[in-house]
């Protein structure tokens, strides 16, 4: 954090800033010292902010045309697609935007896992991030219900029924969530309300996430503590702004590809059939970003235990700063952790794949092994690894290895 006292140049600026220190804040944000070795994996924070704003803006405009009623919702979405000016564009940005949001958040989370960004003193940033992730899943799930197609209806039925696994009070909770004896109009209207609310909660948490980040400052690819400001840092503006901006442009190309060339590839055709409480589609699958957790749910043959395992798979992440006992942050200096990290990535991808497949035969077996490994990674491997692993020596500063290289070059050239 920049410690120098900021004084606005203009007289009005000074008058204003003395009463509401917005200019001090903006000065802090522009001067904010950032490690100079941040790579492109660090640009996803900015990309995620863009995703959130995109979802809020397109969501607000869609809400001007959408009707939250069981009899009219499906039609109003078709009305948006066919009649509303650029309605198709706004809806496709919103629906694919959810997928892009999750793509970015998974990269962001796995970046943190690789470089140990969740470790002390950044536990609060990490925990707020997990809460944001949970809210994102809730918002995405409820948003998916709003078009009132077959997948909307049956997805809502299956997910709300997860609560019926709770002993004794489960049934009561489910009926309370539904506002009836099945998913119906009361369910739709409350989901719409909450779907509208959650993005603003996320926005508030993002402010806290960034605030908590600006206390210790960014982690960096070699994961060492650095002096701020120093030779190891650059000011956020213009260095990081321009780098984030470039990465965002690249990201928007991918985004635009989905929106304009394959807007429905990540969805399910069944959701273009209006909700029918009498018929369940033959193959229910959630959106791709929830598949790993869905695979964990299905891999356990007991209803209550399946639900507990699925929730634990997410909540275990919040305990990660304490489960990982290694003091070294970056996987760059942890040769064993680096391998286990990539096995975990593979494990999650496998879980996602089997989550999309029918829960039988070989798929079920693979799902069970992958589920077991997921928990083994966090509960057994990580705690032990911190004590057993022989880590590599870490440099004292970001510039040190570079200067060493330079000095060897100098020596060589002298010889």
């Amino acid at each position, binding site marked *: 954090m920049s410690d120098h006292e900021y004084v606005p140049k203009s007289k009005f600026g000074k008058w204003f800033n003395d009463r509401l220190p917005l200019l001090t804040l903006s000065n802090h944000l522009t001067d904010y010292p950032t490690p100079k070795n941040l790579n492109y994996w660090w640009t996803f924070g900015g990309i995620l902010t863009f995703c959130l704003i995109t979802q809020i803006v397109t969501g607000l405009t869609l809400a001007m045309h959408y009707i939250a009623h069981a009899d009219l919702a499906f039609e109003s979405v078709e009305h948006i697609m066919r009649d509303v000016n650029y309605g198709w564009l706004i809806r496709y940005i919103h629906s694919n935007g959810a997928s892009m949001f999750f793509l970015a958040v998974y990269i962001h989370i796995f970046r943190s896992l690789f470089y140990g960004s969740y470790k002390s003193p950044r536990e609060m940033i990490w925990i707020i991030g997990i809460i944001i992730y949970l809210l994102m899943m809730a918002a995405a799930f409820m948003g998916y219900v709003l078009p009132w197609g077959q997948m909307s209806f049956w997805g809502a039925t299956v997910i709300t029924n997860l609560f*019926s696994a709770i002993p004794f009070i489960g049934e009561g909770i489910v009926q309370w969530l539904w506002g009836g*004896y099945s998913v119906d109009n009361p369910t739709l209207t409350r989901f719409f309300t909450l779907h509208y609310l959650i993005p603003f909660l996320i926005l508030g948490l993002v402010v806290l996430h960034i605030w908590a980040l600006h206390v210790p400052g960014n982690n960096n690819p070699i994961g060492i503590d650095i002096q701020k400001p120093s030779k190891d840092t650059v000011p956020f503006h213009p260095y990081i702004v321009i780098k984030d901006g470039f990465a965002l442009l690249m990201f928007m190309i991918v985004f635009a590809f989905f929106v304009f060339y394959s807007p429905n590839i990540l969805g399910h055709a069944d959701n273009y059939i209006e909700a029918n*409480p009498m018929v*369940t*589609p033959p193959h229910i699958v959630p959106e791709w970003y929830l598949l790993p957790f869905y695979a964990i749910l*299905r891999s356990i043959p007991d209803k209550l235990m399946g639900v507990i395992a699925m929730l634990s798979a997410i909540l275990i992440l919040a305990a990660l700063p304490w489960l990982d006992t290694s003091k070294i942050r970056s996987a760059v200096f942890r040769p064993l952790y680096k391998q286990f990290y990539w096995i975990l990535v593979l494990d999650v991808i496998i879980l996602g794949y089997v989550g999309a497949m029918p829960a039988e035969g070989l798929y079920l077996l693979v799902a069970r092994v992958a589920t077991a490994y997921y928990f083994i990674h966090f509960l057994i491997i990580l705690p032990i690894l911190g004590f057993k692993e022989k880590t590599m020596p870490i440099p004292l500063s970001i510039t040190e290895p570079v200067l060493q290289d330079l000095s060897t070059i100098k020596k060589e050239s002298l010889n």
Partner: protein
Amino acid sequence: MSEKKTERREFLFTATYAVGAVGVAAVVWPMVDQMNPDASVKALASTEVDVSSVEPGKAITVLWRGKPVFIKRRTPEEIAEARAVKMDDLPDPQKDEDRAKDPEWLVMLGVCTHLGCVPLNDKGDYNGWFCPCHGSHYDTSGRIRKGPAPTNMEIPKYEFVNSNIIKIG
């Protein structure tokens, strides 16, 4: 004297917190309860169904409280199969006699007890129903035999108004 004063103050604090908590609860409860099934939803509690056109071996599905209800007119073979099952083979033991008042007619909620999907008729390993969502198999009495569902499909409250009409609810 000062001790007495402290006691009085503590009492006042506790009393204030207690009254405050009751006040908050009184305001929060309506906010929570408004989400429960409302009067208009509860009013749709019963449905009458004419089953005179259902052939033996066939099933119809009707909507009751937003949920499908299966009304199956079972064949003698299906009844025999359901009654021959040993209780030890059932994850949720229940006699067929207790599930179908009139053995020919099986009336039950067509909702899988796992996560609420609608099972498919005449499918699965036990000639009854099969849930496509997560693979639960039910027998000709709608009892769970294999898969993740914990209990048998539920039997709603119903009665025969006359030989052709069933009143559900």
